[in-house]
């Protein structure tokens, strides 16, 4: 009873709270980093250096009026934000934060496929949110979103297949263990795959430069134009939780998950003294920083360029990478 029900439930509770708190601070981090990139200070008023802004923002969102447009499809309108947030949180049930079972909720043998398939459910939130609003711009945005997500999902999934070929396992714990045994992070074994997964991850989380579904300059806010208050913030939570998921997947697949860097340099062995989960979370935040950095740097793609990039560049490279990996795997 303790091991099968109570402990997992406690872990889930801690994990969910940690992710949601991380998301609120991620919003603050985004505002700060973009401000620095633009030579501004960012939020400075609430608390020292604006740290309490992370708490002020959610309070504001909770207190705002929650409006359902009169002509909206009420049930679907309510369901859409939930459908986009729940998959983003469910994924964390297989993310390993450390080597022993204490650090993850479950290690299933199809872990990676589980992550891909559950995140692919998240697109419904965006599509249905746009449709149920019964409004022009959200509908356009959700059509864009569904086309974009499907296209990039193909590229990302194909790329992950080539990584699976290298590891021979789908379990996320197994993938990190394979990197520990090989003594080499897969970022150096599969650099092309890393680029593809990262670009695809940007597109799948609707982040700049692929944030077409919520391009405010042309779609007045995109699929969540008609949403307000807490429902709007659920969409926001989902987007940021998905960013954390993509970063976690990239770290697990390519940057050794919880492993400390430089295991082969004896002078740096003191790095192993840092707990594994701190390495993992640190690496995740490094990638979150890159996400924000890219948003502050690159302009948005045009829609046809975006689809062209997905279908004509990323998917062919992904197939090529898969073929080369297969040949090398057999030859070596």
């Amino acid at each position, binding site marked *: 009873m303790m091991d099968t029900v109570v402990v997992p439930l406690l872990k889930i509770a801690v994990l969910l709270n940690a992710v949601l708190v991380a998301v609120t601070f991620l919003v603050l981090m985004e505002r700060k980093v973009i401000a620095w990139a633009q030579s501004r200070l960012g939020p400075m008023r609430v608390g020292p250096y604006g740290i309490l802004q992370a708490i002020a923002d959610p309070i504001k969102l909770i207190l705002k009026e929650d409006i359902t447009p009169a002509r909206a*499809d009420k049930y*679907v309108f309510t*369901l859409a934000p939930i459908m986009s947030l729940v998959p983003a949180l469910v994924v964390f049930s297989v993310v390993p934060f450390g080597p022993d079972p204490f650090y993850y909720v*479950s*290690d*299933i*043998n*199809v872990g990676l*496929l*589980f992550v*891909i*398939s*559950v995140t*692919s*459910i998240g*697109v*419904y939130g965006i*599509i*249905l949110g746009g*449709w149920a609003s019964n409004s022009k711009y959200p*509908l356009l945005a*959700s*059509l864009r979103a*569904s*086309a974009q*997500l*499907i296209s990039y*999902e193909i590229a990302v*999934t194909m790329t992950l297949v080539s990584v699976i070929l290298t590891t021979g396992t*789908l379990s996320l714990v197994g993938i990190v263990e394979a990197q520990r045994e090989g003594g080499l992070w897969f970022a150096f074994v599969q650099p092309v795959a890393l680029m593809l997964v990262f670009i695809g991850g940007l597109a799948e989380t609707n982040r700049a430069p692929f944030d077409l579904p919520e391009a405010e300059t042309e779609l007045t806010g995109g699929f969540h134009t008609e949403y307000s208050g807490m429902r709007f913030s659920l969409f926001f939570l989902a987007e940021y939780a998905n960013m954390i998921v993509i970063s976690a997947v990239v770290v697990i697949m390519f940057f050794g998950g919880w492993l400390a860097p430089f295991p082969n340099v004896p002078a740096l062995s003191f790095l192993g003294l840092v707990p594994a989960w701190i390495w993992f979370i640190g690496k995740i935040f490094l990638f979150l920083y890159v996400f924000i950095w890219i948003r502050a740097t690159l302009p948005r793609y045009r829609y046809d360029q975006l689809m062209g990039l997905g279908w004509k560049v990323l998917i062919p490279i992904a197939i090529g990478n898969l073929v080369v990996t297969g040949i090398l795997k057999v030859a070596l």
Partner: protein
Amino acid sequence: MAEAIVFWTLAVLILGLGIMVISARSAVHSVLFLVVNFLLVAVLYVMLNAEFVAVIQVLVYAGGIVVLYLFVVMLVSLKKAPERYADPRRVAWTGTLLAGAVLLEVVAIVVASSGGGEPAATEGALGAADTPFAECGAGPLVSCNTEQLGWVLYTSYLIPFEVASMLLLVAMIGAIVLAKRHL
């Protein structure tokens, strides 16, 4: 006992959702019921210790194909059904006959296969027992279902597998040819 309860709950829900799919007024609601239906079928696969099939069910059907359905439904935007189909008493005889034929077929398969089939025998027929991975898969959460499936697909069922992939490739090329006016 617990398994039976879960199974029957799922079965009732899946059938109920199936009825909702064909009876919902709005096409988008239909598609939504279909998604939930697929997700519950995936749970059934998990109960059968077929995690790989379950995850693929979610990835391909719920996450891919139904998204395309939604895409199409939203593009053609079926606000109102055409008058021809609006009469609830109207019976589509072709559809009824086809559905009846499929039902008969399913019943026939179930009756025919339940006669001679111990579960162990079907496993032997799949060849899973002969794979190099037959010995692992003790715990409920960790089974070698994926490895076994891959092994069987690439050994005993290699030719059907390749034929199916050729079929899909041809379909893909056909779609591209149809979509492009001039190549």
